[in-house]
């Protein structure tokens, strides 16, 4: 057994080629579907049905993108709703998670550990279980089909991660600065506003982006808590437009998909650095 176990570092050429071959295979797996989506979005719809398929579009057209952008009652409507609701969610998440994160990082109070556990555990509950009765509640307090209702629901799903992350960021602010301000007569609120917030801006950006993406991608709540077509965000809008149609409009569908995925990819690339930092900062004090 042991004799079979080679030290691959002694065969650098073999190791290198094996690494690169395996990596290439995995990269095909990872990138091909996205490439295929983009390629199809640039074809006339008839070509999306071609067998054998054209790997590269024979004639490139931007018509599908134009169709989407000009679709007022469909795509543009969903896109606008998505932007409003996601931006609202980002804003509210920042506003409510910041003081909470600060409290967990700096204040000494009763039941701190328990409260933090409760907040973190809330993200473990299956969304479909919550939505069974959340729907009835929303109907009773009349916030079905409203932006406020969606923002409220989406925010609750961003809170655990946001509070956790901002707690980490607040802990990384040197305590001496705060103490100095405290001695100078600055109140807690003053410290939070004038000292902590400017120092944890990257954390606030990360929380905002994370919450935005969450809301942008959410299907279940957006589907259940809206009944009118005008209020649909992108995931339920796409679901209702494209799934179950007799004849699929693949090219249109993927032009639309590319258009709504682009913001998420850009935001995520911007976010990634902060996310890793946030996770690390959160993990420092376990």
């Amino acid at each position, binding site marked *: 057994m042991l004799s079979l176990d080679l030290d691959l570092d002694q065969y650098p050429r073999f190791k290198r080629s094996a690494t690169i071959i395996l990596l290439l295979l*995995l990269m095909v797996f990872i990138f091909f579907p996205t490439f295929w989506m983009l390629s199809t979005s640039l074809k006339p719809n008839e070509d999306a049905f071609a067998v054998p398929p054209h790997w590269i579009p024979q004639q490139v057209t931007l018509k599908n993108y134009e169709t989407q952008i000009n679709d007022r009652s469909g795509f543009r409507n969903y896109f606008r709703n998505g932007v409003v609701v996601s931006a609202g969610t980002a804003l509210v998440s920042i506003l409510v998670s910041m003081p909470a994160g600060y409290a967990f990082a700096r*204040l000494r109070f009763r039941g701190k550990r328990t409260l933090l556990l409760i907040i973190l555990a809330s993200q473990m509950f299956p969304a479909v279980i919550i939505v069974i009765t959340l729907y009835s509640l929303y109907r009773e307090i009349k916030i079905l089909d409203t932006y406020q209702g969606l923002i409220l629901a989406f925010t609750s799903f961003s809170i655990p991660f946001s509070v956790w992350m901002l707690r980490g960021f607040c802990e990384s602010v040197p305590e001496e600065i705060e103490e100095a301000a405290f001695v100078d007569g600055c109140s807690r609120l003053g410290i939070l506003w004038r000292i902590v917030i400017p120092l944890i801006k990257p954390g606030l950006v990360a929380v905002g982006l994370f919450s935005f993406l969450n809301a942008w991608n959410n299907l279940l709540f957006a589907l*259940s808590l809206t009944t009118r077509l005008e209020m649909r965000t992108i995931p339920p809008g796409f679901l209702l437009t494209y799934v179950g149609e007799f004849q699929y409009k693949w090219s249109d569908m993927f032009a639309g998909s590319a258009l709504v995925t682009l913001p998420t990819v850009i935001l995520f690339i911007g976010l990634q650095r902060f996310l890793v930092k946030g996770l690390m900062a959160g993990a420092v004090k376990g």
Partner: protein
Amino acid sequence: MQHMAFSNAHSSGRRLRGLLFSRQGRLSDNLYALFFLAPVLVILTIVIFYPLVRVLSYSVTNASLLFPNREEYIGLENFDYLLNQDAIFRTAVKNTLVFTFFSVMGGFALGFALALLLNENIPLRNVLRGAALIPWVIPGVIVALMTLYMFNGEVGIINYTLKSVGLIEEFIPWFGSLDHAMLAVIIANIWNQTPFYMLMLLAGLQTRPDELMEAAKIDGAGSWARFRHITLPHLSKVIMIITALMVIWNFNNFDLIWTTTQGGPVNATMVLSVYTYRQAFVSFNTGYASAIAVLWLLGLLAFSYFYIRAMEG
């Protein structure tokens, strides 16, 4: 006895003041904590905790969305039916376990391989690390639409490729076939989640102490021995955490299956989340859906309990 009670009351008054104000007469941390945490707690109560409590109370009623506020208490009837007569529920539990198990296994294996490979010194390493995250960032519904197209029975690229390399004779109607629908959604799900495992394991690999690897190499340990005795133990905590997270997330997965198959064909991909949603919003049986939810929560609780014990043990 009386004396003690009196002094308790006395000191509790002082304690209350102590809770609210610090010695310098400023508002105390307790009071600030209340202000600072109130918004978050209010939102979580409205959107998560109150609906959960309501699910518990609905589970013993025949509540229906069609007849609001006319639910009647029916004891454990829902649970009785679920456990003893509902064959679809049993199928859904089984399918959920299959879906979760293979999704987590597949995603973990590929994500781990990718992390190990991208931890080597290769060209374009950082670009690839970033770009490989794309599948994870694509909204669930769009992942599902891509799946529908690629696994399409007539024009799908997967059938075409499999046939041209000779792996299949005839095109497979993936989403119309009892034997293939689950496989298709699991593959799509693995594709979607692989980057998450990669991201987390790569972060773990970067804190692996180089000295230990070097020392083992000098002692003549082979690549496999180093992996087995240094890398794996070093990553064990990350592995435990991400697999627990992903088991729970996959158990809850709704977007992919609802968009591609809605549980079909003939319940071949019926999982718990889709079945619960159908009961609640297609059949409008709020009470019955709540009973499913309660059993689900009990299962989740049991899983968390054993997992935490396993992690500590």
